[in-house]
């Protein structure tokens, strides 16, 4: 062919441009001249070549984009890129509330009264609330022993969470390289998983690992991450970073399946079912339901992962606090952090954190304490974090309308 191959444009990505380039290239020869006619066999070949080149270019472009956190679009790739930075995205979290429960007129058929052990409020006991016209199921998170007062049994500050309990069991097989155990449900609150391992008849509870600095060869920890399908998968230490499991160990994972609609704000709960066969009960709400949230969005992961990496799991600058608070409380609508020196009046040696939850104006005292204690574990010794209520400014808008009364047949009242 008369045309040099260097004259062939190779930088275009669109189908039409690639086809045009091929046709320009073919202008340099005399053997086949029908490339410009759509019906020609040459045109069929040119279209096929252009199509293959275009698809190849698109795939390359997508693959390259998915390699970087900023440009990745597919969730599993965003999660994977964030993992490179040490950031683990938050899972779905269930709405939780605190209640006081009183079981009234409790007496056995023979006139005796059951013991407080018999009257334990078992984990998984159901409560029901009606919120915004729909009914939601809440369950007790941990077994609670009551205090007895004559015929009444009182359970104070019982935490209940929205959802349903489920359990998965696995058997550890050391023949498998790099074993990971995928939970059978997708919507799992990772923060409320209970993982226990039974080895030689002895059952031990393992804790979720959040950092490697305190982990030894015998630490009973497990690691959790989101897999490519969006399910939570857990795995265990290798004998160096956490205790390694033995062949035949039984792994039981108990977790909450998070509802798709969160009943944040619910405050009226009723016992559904019985406690030791008794159902005459009265529930007093201590803290409204809050904290229910979906798993972290792609945009949120992209935003927080870089902040998390910058903070390096320690709290020094204000941005460190801001990133960490959002990790500890993913349901935050807004977070403001300022140093005590900027406070009015100044309070040196303190860092103030104001959190506005998504579905209410203020955090409960329990939630504040939880965030504060977590911050205390990472901050500098001489700085004390204070979690305070945000100042909510509500704006009342007064509008003055001007309109052309000749342009409508309606009167002002209509």
């Amino acid at each position: 062919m008369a045309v040099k191959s260097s004259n062939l444009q190779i930088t275009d990505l669109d189908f039409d441009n690639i086809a045009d380039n091929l046709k320009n290239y073919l202008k340099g020869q005399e053997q086949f001249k029908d490339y410009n006619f759509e019906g020609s066999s040459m045109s069929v070949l040119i279209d096929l070549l252009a199509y293959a080149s275009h698809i190849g270019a698109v795939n390359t472009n997508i693959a390259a984009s998915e390699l970087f956190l900023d440009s990745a679009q597919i969730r599993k790739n965003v999660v994977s890129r964030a993992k490179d930075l040490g950031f683990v995205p938050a899972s779905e979290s269930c709405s939780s509330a605190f209640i006081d429960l009183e079981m009234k007129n409790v007496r056995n058929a023979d006139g005796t009264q059951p013991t407080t052990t018999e009257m334990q409020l078992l984990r998984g006991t159901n409560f029901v609330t009606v919120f915004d016209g729909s009914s939601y199921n809440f369950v007790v998170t941990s077994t609670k022993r009551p205090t007895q007062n004559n015929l009444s049994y009182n359970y104070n500050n019982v935490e209940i969470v929205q959802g349903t309990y489920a359990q998965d069991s696995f058997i550890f097989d050391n023949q498998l390289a790099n074993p990971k155990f995928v939970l059978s449900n997708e919507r799992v609150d990772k923060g409320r998983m209970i993982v226990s391992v039974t080895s030689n008849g002895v059952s031990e509870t393992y804790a979720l690992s959040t950092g490697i600095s305190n982990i030894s060869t015998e630490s009973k920890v497990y690691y959790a991450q989101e897999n490519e399908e969006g399910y939570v998968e857990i795995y265990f230490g290798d004998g160096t970073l956490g205790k390694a499991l033995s062949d035949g160990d039984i792994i039981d994972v108990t977790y909450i399946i998070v509802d798709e609609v969160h009943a944040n704000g619910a405050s009226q709960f009723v016992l559904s079912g019985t406690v030791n066969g008794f159902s005459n009960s009265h529930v007093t709400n201590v803290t409204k339901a809050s904290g229910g949230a979906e798993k972290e969005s792609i945009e949120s992961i992209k935003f927080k992962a870089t902040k998390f990496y910058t903070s390096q799991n320690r709290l020094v600058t204000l941005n460190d606090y801001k990133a960490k608070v959002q990790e500890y409380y993913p349901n935050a609508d807004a977070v403001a952090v300022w140093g005590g020196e900027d406070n009015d009046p100044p309070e040196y040696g303190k860092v103030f954190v104001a959190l506005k939850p998504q579905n209410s104006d203020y955090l409960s005292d329990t939630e504040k304490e939880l965030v504060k204690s977590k911050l205390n574990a990472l901050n500098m010794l001489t700085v004390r974090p204070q979690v305070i209520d945000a100042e909510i400014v509500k704006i009342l808008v007064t509008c003055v309308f001007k309109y052309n009364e000749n342009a409508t047949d309606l009167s002002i009242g209509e």
Partner: protein
Amino acid sequence: MVDLVNNGKTVATKDIYADLDIFFRKHPITGDIVRKTDTDAIKRSVRNIVLTNKFERPFKPNFGGSIRNKLFELNTDRQLNRMKRNLAKEIQQLEPRVNNVNVVFGDLEDSNNLDVTIFYNITNGAPQQEVEITVSRTR
């Protein structure tokens, strides 16, 4: 085909149109791929247009006469006339080297296939060309 003339004498001929053979047949002597030239190239082009279904060519969804898609349409005059019109229009639009396109369907009674004959003139070239295509079901 055009004549190359030197001092009033024809010294060679040159093809105006030249295309690949879509079946990629080998030339028995040279071993090269066979070329279709001039009227044969145009005939092949018309045939390609008629036999290509719409949405078959990448990024050219409107390309093609879609005659194979019509194989199971009702055998009515109304339907046949519409097919003829559409086919002639497609050929006229997609193949600028031909004009006066006329489409004729063969006897359709009990033949279980569709005989299509396309008559056309080559612009600035040979008149009264025709292409015969028979479309039948494969199973």
